């Protein structure tokens, strides 16, 4: 079913061997005796400090042997000149293949070919970056973005990347960068057939501790039980910065784990570039694509968010704009032969419904959010280099029907999901349980206990819990004898932490841990499985500041009590929650409840009490009218005002390191303090090279 991208060599051929024998560039520019130009190269991809600052270290871009990535440069020619020829060299060997039709098909030169009156500022001669143009603002009008797609290298070590471009007047400009191939130890032990990545979005150490206190309890200083993730034998600390900030968002926060490279915020499976097209950025191959091509593994993506959201998309989709929902969900299906996509479950049905009118606000009668404006069509060189589907601007596409046509069984709710397994296991599975993000555990569990106020208002009273989705996903994925890569995301740990809803996000962690227990049991039965539990970043600067000194009834009578009831140190004692048979606390509104503060908070009014309705989710077509718009109006004039330390309406991500715990084959690779991109190479080692 899977196919190899063009020019990729089998793993056996690339590990420990240099990529050689590429067709030589017909007119290798390195040998030309043309004069140097005053032109400049303002961007060289993959990114490197050698290019940016002249320092050889740290090496920024790293890849596994044979992992595909694009080479790209932005050239600013002298006035009146254009780029006429270019070539990339790795360790002085040309990698461009302009001498062959197949080689030329994998290259491109993008210049500002839009309407000159619109796209070039008449006074400065610089690009304007306006809608309908090709290049970002601020470049010379004759700038060129040149690309060589789908390159790979086998030999381990640091390699020099040289770029040379020739101008129309015969002068040339060059630039130098570097990248590293991280070798794989082929004799390290058994290989991990199955890799399961649990991503607790926004889950820092405080979030884990809060769930432990609530779900397990403490007695005389000792935890009465451990979360499943606590029982994993190996734990490390992860540095989470993105390519362009110490504080990452969820797109690079996830994709850094599964590409081995730093992406800029908002970007998934790509490096930044200087074109406006969000789907033409230089790509880097995902773990799922790499292992599907090399080993035939399947991919499963399970989330409690909208499936177009940054974390799930960062397992399989290549785009520089995480908000391009139509193109993102289309690419999930269109490139399933590259990624091995076999299971996709979560919310986000609004992206799968046909929108004949191409208009979304308010939505058409069926609620579709599909639009041409955020769909994708790939340029020729990406299609040729990566073997990717070209895509189409097709808001009228019935994507559920297309998934079903491709062999996916479809479940719109939990009952239907269970029904699909009543007589066997589907080979491929699509589950879309909400219009956008699914409801959170707090509200789903309330619905199961008979209070469906929230889930009914959202229109989806029968949503599965994450552990139930995980069990179904593993059931389907484990049919592939070559194994699988799976992402299981607890998405609303982050979303509810943003909203500083101290009753909802802890239960998201509890739900997440219950899903981890399902995977741990699977790994016990399948010892060739590696399970890691981590986060993309910490969210909200959550801190467990103590516990209430008041009863729940007293809090309700005095919702503006503020800090007067915050018990610190000895006064915090040990909050005692009671779990119901369903595994969730009977109530979070207990006497002496756990109290949570936020170090990255926006303005809010704190009552220490649960909110009956979740704070508004802007992506829901059915937001309950009772939902407060933001934390800065929730409990306004009732609760105690706490001034924010950050701008905006919500708490923000922080740069704090986050814990990662590992279980199963290769878990010992995950210890110490390491970068988020290191995780990719540890996973690659376990899957390709093996581990004891």
């Amino acid at each position: 079913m899977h196919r190899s991208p063009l020019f990729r060599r089998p793993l056996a051929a690339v590990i420990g061997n240099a990529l050689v024998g590429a067709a030589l560039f017909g007119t290798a520019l390195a040998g030309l005796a043309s004069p140097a130009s005053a032109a400049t190269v303002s961007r060289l991809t993959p990114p490197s400090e050698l290019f940016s600052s002249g320092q050889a270290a740290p090496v920024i871009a790293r890849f596994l042997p044979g992992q595909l990535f694009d080479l790209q440069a932005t050239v600013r020619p002298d006035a009146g000149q254009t780029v006429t020829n270019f070539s990339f060299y790795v360790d002085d060997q040309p990698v461009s293949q302009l001498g062959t039709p197949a080689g030329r098909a994998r290259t491109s030169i993008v210049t500002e070919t839009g309407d000159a009156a619109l796209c070039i500022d008449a006074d400065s001669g610089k690009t304007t970056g306006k809608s309908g143009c090709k290049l970002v603002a601020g470049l010379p009008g004759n700038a060129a973005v040149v690309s060589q797609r789908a390159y790979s290298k086998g030999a381990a070590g640091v390699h020099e990347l040289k770029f040379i471009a020739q101008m129309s007047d015969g002068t040339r400009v060059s630039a130098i960068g570097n990248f590293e191939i991280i070798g794989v130890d082929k004799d390290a032990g058994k290989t991990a057939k199955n890799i399961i990545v649990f991503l607790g979005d926004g889950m820092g150490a405080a979030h884990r501790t809060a769930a432990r206190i609530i779900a397990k309890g403490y007695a005389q200083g000792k935890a009465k039980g451990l979360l499943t993730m606590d029982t994993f034998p190996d734990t490390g600390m992860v540095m989470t910065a993105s390519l362009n900030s110490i504080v990452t968002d969820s797109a690079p926060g996830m994709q850094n784990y599964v590409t081995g490279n730093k992406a800029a915020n908002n970007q998934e499976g790509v490096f930044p570039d200087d074109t406006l097209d969000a789907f033409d950025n230089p790509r880097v191959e995902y773990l799922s694509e790499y292992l599907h091509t090399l080993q035939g593994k399947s991919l499963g993506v399970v989330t409690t968010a909208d499936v177009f959201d940054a974390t799930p998309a960062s397992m399989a989709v290549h785009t520089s704009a995480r908000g391009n929902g139509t193109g993102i969900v289309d690419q999930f299906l269109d490139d399933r032969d590259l990624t091995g996509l076999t299971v996709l479950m979560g919310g986000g049905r609004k992206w799968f419904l046909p929108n004949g009118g191409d208009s979304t606000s308010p939505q058409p009668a069926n609620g579709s959010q599909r639009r041409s404006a955020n769909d994708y069509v790939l340029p020729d060189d990406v299609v040729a280099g990566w073997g990717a589907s070209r895509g189409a601007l097709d808001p009228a596409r019935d994507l559920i029907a297309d998934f079903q046509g491709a062999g996916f069984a479809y479940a719109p709710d939990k009952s239907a999901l269970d029904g699909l397994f009543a007589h066997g296991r589907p080979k491929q599975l699509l589950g879309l349980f909400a219009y956008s993000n699914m409801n959170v555990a707090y509200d789903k569990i309330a619905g199961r206990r008979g209070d469906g106020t929230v889930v009914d208002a959202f229109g989806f009273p029968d949503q599965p819990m994450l552990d139930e989705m995980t069990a179904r996903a593993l059931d389907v994925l484990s049919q592939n004898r070559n194994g699988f890569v799976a992402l299981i995301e607890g998405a609303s740990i982050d979303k509810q932490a943003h909203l500083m809803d101290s009753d909802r996000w802890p239960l998201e962690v509890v739900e997440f841990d219950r899903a981890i227990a399902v995977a741990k049991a699977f790994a016990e039965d399948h010892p060739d499985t590696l399970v890691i539990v981590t986060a993309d970043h910490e969210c909200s600067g959550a801190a467990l500041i103590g516990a209430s000194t008041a009863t729940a009834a007293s809090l309700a009578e005095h919702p503006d009590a503020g800090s007067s009831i915050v018990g610190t140190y000895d006064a915090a004692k040990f909050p005692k929650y009671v779990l119901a048979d369903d595994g969730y606390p009977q109530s979070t509104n207990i006497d002496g409840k756990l109290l949570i503060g936020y170090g990255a908070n926006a303005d809010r009014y704190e009552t220490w009490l649960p909110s009956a309705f979740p704070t508004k989710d802007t992506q829901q077509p059915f937001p309950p009218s009772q939902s407060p718009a933001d934390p800065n109006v929730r409990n306004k004039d009732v609760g105690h005002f706490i001034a924010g330390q950050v701008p905006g309406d919500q708490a923000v991500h922080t740069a704090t390191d986050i814990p990662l715990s590992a279980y199963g084959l290769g878990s010992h690779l995950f210890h110490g303090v390491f970068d988020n991109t290191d995780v990719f190479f540890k996973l690659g080692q376990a899957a390709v090279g093996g581990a004891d």
Partner: protein
Amino acid sequence: MQRFTLALAGLLALIPAPFAHANGATGTSATTHVPAALAVTRRLGAPPAGVTELKFADMFKLPVGPKGLEPTDRLRTLDGKRVRIVGYMVQQELPVAGSFMLSPLPASAGDEDESLADDLPASTIIVQLPNGPGTIVPDLHGLIRVTGVLHVGATEVARTERVAAARVTLDARTERALLRLAREAAARKKAR
């Protein structure tokens, strides 16, 4: 989980409901800028004779089916009839002459920055001023009520590319109040 304790319910009752409607209940946060013909200052009584109350929550079938949203039979049967609906005027960065949008919860539409990616609820409707096609209606904050003839079916607002599943053509009394408000706002602007 005891999500609705009596104490909490009591607390919620005290909140001056900035977000309190769409299920046909009531609101308490009308502003002084809202003309009497549109104001919601207390629990509304039954609509006038010949007018039917339409709630946003009654527009689409719930729970949602296996695919897209589906209009309710109630919405279909009210097509062409006079209705009263209570909601919030969508604050539009670039107002459209002759109409505005009515949403079940406070919302803003940033056409310039967000294009159409502003996530207005699916049940948002368009309210048209039949005799004021060139009128820019000033922003009204808080809950308002509009009365007019309901038209079910996709309606696109010129220039904005926005499409709604239904629209309401205002009754004369409500429209007169808005036209007067618009004239006064224009005069104040001119005086400045």
